[in-house]
């Protein structure tokens, strides 16, 4: 590995924002704009470093940056920047930078500015350290820290009970996933110890190269669960995926993400759209070799991802809250990414490329969507679309940029050419891969999921656009276009959302293909796929014409419907979109998740029954202890009455004692 000055700075990438956190947290109050300047500078620094590293790496992807230091016992912390990490680093620091700048204005009226910037800085630090961690433990640590920051920032306005509740919900729901992740790590650890035969000096347990080098043995280990012979690797990877489900809001642990919109919009943009929620996807991508080598794991990923994509779409279509619509769209898009990774079972390493590519693009256009929504909310003061309408006239820039973002999200573009939005270039491959999968295994479910989701996507996003920006104001609000400090980031993001995909498409894929063949790890994905009983066939891009065009067609269809209903308003869906319609009610109530999870499972079963019973047991144990004391006192009270105070009785007692003693001893002596 060639030593260059650059990688000496790699460790600074997370450190800088961390320092900014400390400074802003303790001294922010006395500074202009709540000391926002420190995070911004720090993150800018991180971005510069990561971007330069990325640029250099484009040259020779084999030369990855890897530094490890012993942490405690046999575990380490370290820096690993390979193509996968590089692009993520650049994206995270870049988006975070823009959002921080945007936030200077957006949060300007809030007294808690210093806390806000400190926490976002901390979040960025944690996220960056997550991306560049070279071992699963550090990964998990950062994973938890971003979770913490998400908790703190969702509850940023803690006086609002709803915010406090949402924060708690988010933390707990993701916690469920985290526990699965941790369980996976723990099983992995003890397996590795078993395989390695104790601790080897010089090697760091749980570092990715170490883990990957044991994949075959891990896959060979079998566990018998309910009579099924399951490979340890499958268990571990599925547990990891459990973590990803929690973090990336996949079904069934997605419930926290919509509520998380209680936080400031910038937070939603940064954490719950662009970066943190993609950590789950990143995790799967990071451990892709394990997934592909584990039988059935990728299958689960694919199904769940595809299902989530559709499932979230159905709810997005009925929401009236600006941000909630975007939240569901995020869930749905994350579903796409998962689906893409899951399809690695047929397209192999390309899956990583595809879904990470979508991840990056999604980051751009979703962050953009949120920031636009933010600027609308900031200006208008409400986020209920039923009260909006015609905002486009007062906020032209916002309207335009948001429309671009919407196009990108819906994935408009002309197949076969290089014309198209970023979303188009990253979403279609996933759908195509799903087609290939279907073709190969005669199992069309993922494909149907993805197509249907594509339709819904464009439907709900344009519903949002039309309801918000077009038509007459449905309430008397006083809007104004946001200041430049907010609109400039919008413009930049819009640019990326529009052209990034088209420009980098081919190079990007190729670059990411190198992730697992370099100076750090050198894996033959083909063999691993063999271990996982996955046969890799072909790549995307050469399907029948109809298939290539179909996504575009459904997207257009969605657009058309939204246009008819919400722009021209020729179609009235009075009864259809009312609580009388059971389907609508089901969707609007979000499949009664709240009732099922919160009220039935958490409050009912766990709190109401299990915890209650335990408490009863506790009382019982306690009263047993207490009983001793009570009984003793009672006995004492009775026994003291033996002492009558009459001397004759005392004499009698003495005599009786003598008599009894004689008899007793005599008897026992006889017995013995």
């Amino acid at each position, binding site marked *: 590995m060639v030593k260059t000055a650059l990688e000496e700075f790699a460790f600074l990438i997370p450190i800088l924002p961390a320092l900014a956190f400390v400074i802003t947290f303790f001294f922010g109050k006395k500074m202009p704009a709540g000391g926002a300047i420190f995070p911004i500078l720090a993150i800018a620094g991180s971005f510069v470093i990561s971007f330069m590293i990325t640029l250099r790496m484009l040259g020779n992807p084999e030369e990855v940056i890897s530094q490890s230091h012993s942490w405690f016992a046999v575990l380490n912390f370290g820096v690993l920047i390979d193509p996968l990490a590089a692009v993520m680093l650049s994206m995270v620091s870049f988006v975070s930078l823009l959002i921080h700048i945007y936030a200077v204005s957006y949060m300007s009226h809030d007294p808690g500015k210093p806390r806000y910037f400190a926490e976002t800085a901390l979040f960025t630090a944690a996220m960056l350290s997550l991306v560049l961690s070279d071992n699963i433990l550090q990964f998990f640590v950062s994973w938890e820290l971003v979770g913490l920051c998400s908790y703190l920032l969702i509850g940023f306005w803690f006086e609002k009970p709803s915010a406090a509740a949402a924060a*708690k919900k988010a933390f707990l729901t993701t916690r469920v996933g985290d526990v699965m992740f941790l369980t996976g790590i723990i099983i992995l650890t003890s397996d590795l110890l078993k395989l390695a035969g104790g601790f080897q000096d010089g090697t760091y347990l749980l570092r990715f190269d170490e883990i990957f080098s044991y994949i075959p043995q891990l896959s060979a280990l079998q566990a018998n669960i309910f009579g099924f012979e399951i490979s340890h690797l499958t268990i571990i990877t599925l547990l990891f995926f459990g973590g990803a489900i929690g973090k990336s809001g996949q079904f069934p642990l997605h419930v926290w993400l919509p509520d998380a919109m209680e936080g400031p919009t910038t937070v939603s943009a940064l954490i719950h759209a662009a970066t943190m929620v993609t950590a789950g996807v990143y995790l799967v991508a990071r451990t892709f070799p394990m997934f592909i080598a584990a039988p059935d794991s990728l299958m689960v990923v694919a199904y769940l991802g595809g299902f989530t994509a559709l499932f979230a779409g159905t709810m997005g279509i009925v929401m009236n809250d600006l941000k909630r619509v975007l939240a569901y769209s995020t869930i749905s898009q994350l579903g796409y990414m998962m689906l893409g990774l899951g399809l690695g079972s047929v397209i192999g390493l390309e899956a990583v490329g595809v879904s990470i590519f979508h991840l990056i693009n999604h980051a751009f256009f979703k962050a953009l969507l949120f920031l636009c929504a933010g600027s609308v909310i900031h200006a208008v003061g409400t986020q209920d679309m039923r009260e909006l309408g015609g905002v486009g006239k007062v906020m032209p820039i916002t309207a335009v940029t948001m429309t671009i973002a919407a196009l990108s999200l819906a994935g408009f573009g002309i197949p076969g050419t290089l014309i198209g939005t970023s979303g188009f270039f990253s979403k279609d491959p996933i759908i195509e891969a799903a087609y290939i999968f279907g073709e190969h295994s005669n199992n069309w479910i993922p494909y149907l999921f993805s197509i249907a989701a594509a339709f819904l996507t464009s439907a709900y996003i344009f519903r949002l656009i039309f309801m918000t920006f077009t038509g007459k104001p449905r309430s008397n609000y006083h809007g104004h276009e946001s200041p430049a400090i907010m609109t400039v980031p919008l413009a930049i993001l819009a640019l990326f959302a529009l052209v990034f995909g088209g420009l980098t498409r081919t190079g990007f894929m190729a670059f990411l293909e190198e992730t697992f063949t370099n100076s750090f790890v050198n894996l033959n994905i083909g063999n691993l796929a063999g271990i996982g009983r996955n046969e890799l066939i072909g790549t995307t891009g050469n399907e029948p014409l109809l298939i290539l065009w179909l996504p575009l067609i459904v997207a257009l269809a969605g657009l058309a419907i939204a246009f008819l209903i919400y722009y021209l308003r020729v179609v009235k869906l009075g009864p259809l979109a009312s609580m009388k319609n059971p389907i609508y009610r089901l969707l609007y109530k979000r499949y009664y998740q709240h009732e099922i999870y919160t009220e039935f499972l958490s409050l009912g079963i766990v709190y109401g029954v299990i915890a209650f019973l335990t408490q009863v047991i506790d009382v019982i144990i306690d009263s047993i202890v207490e009983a001793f004391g009570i009984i003793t006192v009672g006995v004492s009270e009775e026994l003291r009455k033996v002492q009558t105070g009459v001397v004759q009785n005392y004499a009698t007692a003495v005599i009786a004692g003598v008599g009894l003693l004689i008899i007793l001893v005599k008897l026992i002596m006889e017995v013995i």
Partner: protein
Amino acid sequence: MLPVASLLILVPLIFAAVTFLTKTKGQAAGLGFTGSLATLGLAIYAYLNFESSTAAMQFFESMTWIPSLGVNYSVGIDGISMPLILLNAIVIPLLILYSWKEDRESPNRFYGLILTMEAAVIGVFVALDFVVFYIFWELTLIPLFFMVNIWGGEKRAHASYKFFIYTHVASLIMLLGIFGLFYASWQQTGIPTFGIRELIAQFQFFESGLLKDAIFLSIIFGFLAKLPTFPFHSWLPDAYTEAPTAGSVLFILLKIGGYGLFRISLPMLPNTGNPELMIMMLGMLGSFSILYGALVALRQKDLKRMIAYSSLSHMGYVILGAAGLVTLSVSGAMFQQFSHGLIMSILFMSAGAIQTSTGTRIINDLGGLAKKMPKLTVVMMVGFMASLGLPGLTGFIAEFLVLAFSYARLPGFVLIALLVIVITAAYHLWAMQRAMFGVYNEKLGDIRDINSMQVFSMAAIALLVLYFGLNPSPVLNMMISNSEAIVSLAAALGV
């Protein structure tokens, strides 16, 4: 080289004696603080001259005391005791600072008792002779008994009796086990000795497995009841809750149960009649305590009581890790003792601060305190996050080590413990949300935030939690070399 081990007992004891004689609060607090600082100085001196890489006994002193019973006054420090000594030496000065501005009746007793407690606890940690060990062990009861009874809550009398007698019974049963150990080895060697290490070394040569089990069980019972662990915990919630803040913290620093587990029971375990069974038993107790404590804590209305149960739940990790009987799991268990001491101190201090400023501990009567007590909220948040095992803080290191490395031996129990993590998070966050966040409950009137002294002491502990969470090695390495010794003992016997 100073005779640190003895000084660590003597210095606080002497200062305590002097403090009892003081008249004014100023003198009492001042003397108390000086005494604890002196102890801290000694502890640091010991730490600086401490060789972490070895399991050998250091600062060893010994002199004959009761030759006719083979009792020696022998003390020493090793990797098992050093961290716990540090824990006490560090937290107690901060505890005194924390309670600096509270004015209470007979402060001389208050600070005197704190120092007495410190001396007694450290005495247990350094003792290498069962008699010395037991004497200090029992001595720890008295300051706490007085603490709870003089400055405790409404039900203090009841709580203190329960604690006093319950744990006294446990200690007496332990004493029986010690007698058994003593005489059995006397019969074999012909030399009477109460030396802990000698007796443990002799333990393996006893013929009858039944005798071994009886001795082992009766001794470990004393430790388990002190830890405490389900189902021997009934004294804990009352005592922890009724005690004044300082008392609760002293309870938390009372790590002698777990210490005994590592110092005495684990080395004996491999030689018992049926080690596997014992390990299973310990593992079960451990994971059940974790689960049980968490579930009960989930339903507590009283903040302090909730913390008490969560402490029960956390101590489960100590037993689980010990049962794991792998170098790192045992080290994890030891580290859990250390980290638990720090974290719970913060939590009890926070609960105490809330009670003093609002006058209530009932979670639902609080609300929105974050608005009025921002400083407290920050520190308390650190404490809660550490307590629910957030990475980057000590709690996580301990729990990860315990879980990850006990898994090989006790997968089932580890999985139970893993499930509990969610519940743990649940009640912590629930309490946080109800008490600190949301709308401020105006009924509480106008309340003040914690004073600068309290901020300092709590923040200092919080920083330690953070520091050792990021860089546990300084403490962990001491433990590792000792746990290796313990585990290799077991491994030699194929356990």
